[in-house]
């Protein structure tokens, strides 16, 4: 973990809102989902990301060119051209007409997530950060001490 570094991977989403607004926005790709984070880094919104749904966008005005995925505020998948095949695996999308299909698919995502958490087993991040802040202070102190030591040598 770095104090200033960010390991986030970003993807451009063409996001449609309920109020007939749309926006090209960079979103974080987190465990194969495009997510939006709120206070304290909590996930507040997520939609499933499929590479097959990426569409080339050449750019316009100040919006840069990129591969773009479509998304909207009410659902987790927007695939207007049916590029993703239906199924129960994670690389497919469920059949919305079959209730169990959606449930099983969501359960697979949750199970996958559970395995990821189990493998990562996060530690208390704030204690690590605090330690790094103290280490930074010690480095600054060492610099001060070195300056003082050098100045004494010159005198």
């Amino acid at each position, binding site marked *: 973990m770095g104090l200033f570094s960010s390991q986030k991977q970003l993807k451009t989403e063409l996001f449609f809102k309920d109020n007939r607004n749309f926006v090209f926005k960079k979103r974080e790709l987190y465990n194969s989902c495009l997510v939006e984070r709120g206070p304290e880094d909590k996930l*507040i919104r997520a939609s499933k990301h499929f590479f097959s749904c990426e569409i080339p966008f050449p750019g316009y005005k100040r919006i840069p060119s990129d591969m773009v995925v479509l998304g909207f505020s009410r659902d987790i998948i927007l695939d207007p051209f049916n590029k993703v095949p239906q199924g129960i695996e994670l690389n497919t999308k469920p059949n919305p007409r079959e209730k169990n299909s959606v449930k099983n698919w969501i359960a697979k995502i949750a199970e996958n997530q559970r395995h990821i958490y189990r493998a990562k087993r996060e530690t208390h991040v704030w204690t690590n950060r605090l*330690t790094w802040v103290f280490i930074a202070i010690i480095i600054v102190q060492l610099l001060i001490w070195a300056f003082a030591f050098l100045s004494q040598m010159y005198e």
Partner: protein
Amino acid sequence: MNKEKTNLRKYKIVLPIAGIVIGILLGVLFFAADLSGIVFVIAILMIVVSSILLKKWWGSIGDDESRVIVTDEKVPSGRVNSMNIYPDKIVFDEVAEPKGQPWKCENDGKSYFIHILDEEAELLKEFQLPDQAYMDPQLLASRVLELPAHRRIFRRKQTLLQQLSPMMAALGVIIMWIIIITTT
């Protein structure tokens, strides 16, 4: 244009390094020539800020969004009235007879008609969002991806050394201050 970007990338390395070097020189000068205390504060600030900038910019060297050439489609230079969604491209274009009601683009604050290709009729039609078919995005985030209960279960128990590390580091800070005060 490319030359300007190459120069910009060079500055992103050279400027912070120069800041650190100047900061160190100012610090040495402060003690050697007995200058005002503000010089020392500026020296420390220069070193810290330059280090942060170097760390931040070091990762982005080589990043250049304009190098992404995703399609041969020409980007319209002027204002157009529509955005068209095709299976293989999304383009802003001028459409003679736009369909439906305009949508507002939050990136530039202008309104555009949005069309999508009807693959059977091979014609552009008005873009309409579907209703919810799968799941609410907020539920996916909070219940499925966050898994708060599982996170608590799987949280790694810290060793005594890890638990004490902030206190040990704090102790290190105090000891360093004592060394500075007593030896200078």
